[in-house]
């Protein structure tokens, strides 16, 4: 049995593809599609496909989307958590955004560690400063400030307290907020040596998604076939050691981030509809042996001329999610706008419990758009 890999120092993330490669890939695939329409004999007519029902999806691609990272985080922290308090007091994890299931928070709960929740105050933090206690976990630092003068004051107060605490702490922060806090608060000087996970390349993705895809309900081995080529997406590619073109594409498009890959994967899973019946996709019979995997699609992105949209997306990535009022406080939306509604409509953001946030499946495209338009982007 192989040991899970451990997290690495920030800066050693091995990106599966560069923005230039992704841009070229997109252009080439569009040209290919125009020049050589997909063969319906090898794959399947997209008209015959419907979305896989949620119940079926939860069996063949079950949450959480960060599942393999739990073991890796455990491997990284196991010794440090159990050892006696030392001068090495802080562990910092910088993670890509759109982690909706709160990896660090769930890991802390699974290990019985105390979590300093987002709604708790600085005064409460002082009461928790017990040097002998087990580590205190502070996940999602990005949710504890706003990009405003008052917000900077708040986060600086928190960072000052954390810097002088005697209790061991584990801090989680998203990579976009980290970049902002480096500039505005010099956070990298307070919490040195932050870590991040190793990128999920095509092999690791195939291994993880392949394990998930074994349907535990009846032990049936489902076949996941590409809707354009008809090939098994978990099979080998042209070279025997290579994985399929779909898995390679998934690794590139997801930027090696497991929760992004997981959402893209679920979005691409379809089942064949019975043409004789006019059925609702949610009521499709899930007792099928073949699951059709459609090509990954990129959402429509705002251009530079739609600057309000880009400004909002940038703010949402820095904060992990914002209410409408918070967006107004952090983004200079001078003119009357319906930018949030338009971003929701094109599938770049959604709204949950009053918070707008970028959709994980749209994150790579959003990152590329912001990067292409010169916005400061994250660094792993």
């Amino acid at each position, binding site marked *: 049995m192989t040991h899970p890999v451990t997290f690495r120092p920030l800066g050693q993330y091995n990106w599966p593809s560069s923005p230039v490669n992704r841009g070229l890939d997109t252009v080439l695939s569009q040209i290919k599609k125009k020049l050589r329409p997909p063969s319906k004999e090898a794959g399947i007519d997209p008209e015959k496909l419907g979305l896989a029902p949620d119940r079926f999806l939860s069996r063949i691609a079950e949450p959480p989307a960060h599942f393999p990272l739990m073991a890796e985080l455990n491997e990284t922290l196991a010794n440090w958590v159990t050892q006696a308090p030392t001068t090495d007091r802080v562990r910092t994890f910088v993670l890509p955004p759109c982690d909706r299931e709160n990896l660090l928070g769930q890991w802390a709960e699974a290990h019985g560690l105390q979590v300093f929740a987002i709604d708790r105050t600085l005064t409460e933090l002082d009461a928790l400063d017990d040097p002998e206690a087990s580590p205190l976990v502070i996940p999602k630092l990005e949710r504890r400030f706003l990009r405003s*003068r008052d917000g900077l004051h708040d986060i600086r107060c928190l960072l000052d307290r954390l810097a002088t605490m005697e209790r061991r702490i584990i801090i989680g922060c998203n990579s976009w907020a980290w970049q902002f806090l480096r500039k505005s608060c010099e956070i990298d000087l307070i919490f040195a040596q932050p870590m991040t996970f190793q990128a999920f390349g095509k092999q690791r993705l195939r291994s993880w998604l392949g394990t998930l895809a074994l349907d535990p309900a009846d032990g049936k081995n489902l076949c996941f076939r590409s809707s354009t080529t008809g090939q098994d997406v978990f099979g080998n590619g042209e070279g025997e050691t290579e994985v399929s073109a779909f898995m390679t594409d998934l690794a590139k498009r997801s930027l090696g981030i497991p929760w992004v890959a997981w959402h893209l994967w679920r979005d691409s899973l379809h089942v064949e509809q019975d043409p004789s019946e006019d059925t609702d996709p949610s009521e499709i019979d899930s007792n099928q042996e073949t699951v059709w995997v459609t090509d990954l699609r990129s959402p429509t992105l705002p251009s530079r001329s739609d600057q309000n949209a880009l400004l909002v997306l*940038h703010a949402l990535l820095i904060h992990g999610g914002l209410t409408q009022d918070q967006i107004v406080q952090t983004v200079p939306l001078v003119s009357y706008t319906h930018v949030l509604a338009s971003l929701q409509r094109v599938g770049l953001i959604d709204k949950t419990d009053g918070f707008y946030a970028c959709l994980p499946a749209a994150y790579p495209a959003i990152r590329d758009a912001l990067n292409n338009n010169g*916005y400061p982007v994250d660094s792993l």
Partner: protein
Amino acid sequence: MQSQPDMVRDKAANLLNDLQDISFVQITFILLLSLGAIWVIRKTIPFLADRVPSRLRLYLLRAVPILRMIIIITALLWIIPLIFNITLQNFVVIAGAASVAIGFAFKDYVSSLIAGIVAIFERPYGPGDWVEIEGDYGEVISLGMRAIRLRTASDDIITVPHDTIWSHNISNANLGSQTLMCVAEFYLDPDHDAAKVRRELVDVALTSAYLDYRRPVLVMLKETEFATRYSLKAYPFDMRDQFKFVSDLTERGKEAIRDAGARPVSMPNFAANP
């Protein structure tokens, strides 16, 4: 047998090739081809420049004048031998005639053309740069053979001949870089806590949505006769946002100054309280 002076006279007399030897079709073809290539470059490259990643935009725009110059030189080198009988003597004759014509009739025009070539190599400005020439500040939207065109913040188009570089200072705000320094200025009543105002103004810049994180933020103070002048200096990530950036800094800077307990001065106040 002809003597040496006679041969020289004959060659000089054949300054132009015989008319029947000049291929006007070929010359027209070269001219049309060159003009077509220049037209395509002038249309397609700026079109592409607005669609590629912003870091590549200026590289593409700067290629336009260089490619145009290469095309013109190639066309001239192609056409001249088709028309003229090029010898050393003929060259001297042509150069002499051209000098007289240029000296009397086209001095300023040719001066601008030569300055345009110099500008391509010296780069006092380039397409996409923000420059100030004789009080006009704007973005260089085109760099022609004779002149450049600036688009100002008020959307006026100003044409400036290249020979301005011989006699006037050219102030270039970015010189080919993606960004430029923006300055928001505030004039405050001198009776205030300067350290607090300074800190607040730095935070105003740090929290701007347009800020380029890679560049520094500075606040400079200067005591003037009637007020303390604060200059908040920072860089936007895209120089095309400079006016929005300065407006954002100014708007939120005023609020920060008020929160810091300072008071801006204005001319009516100054006049009322001498």
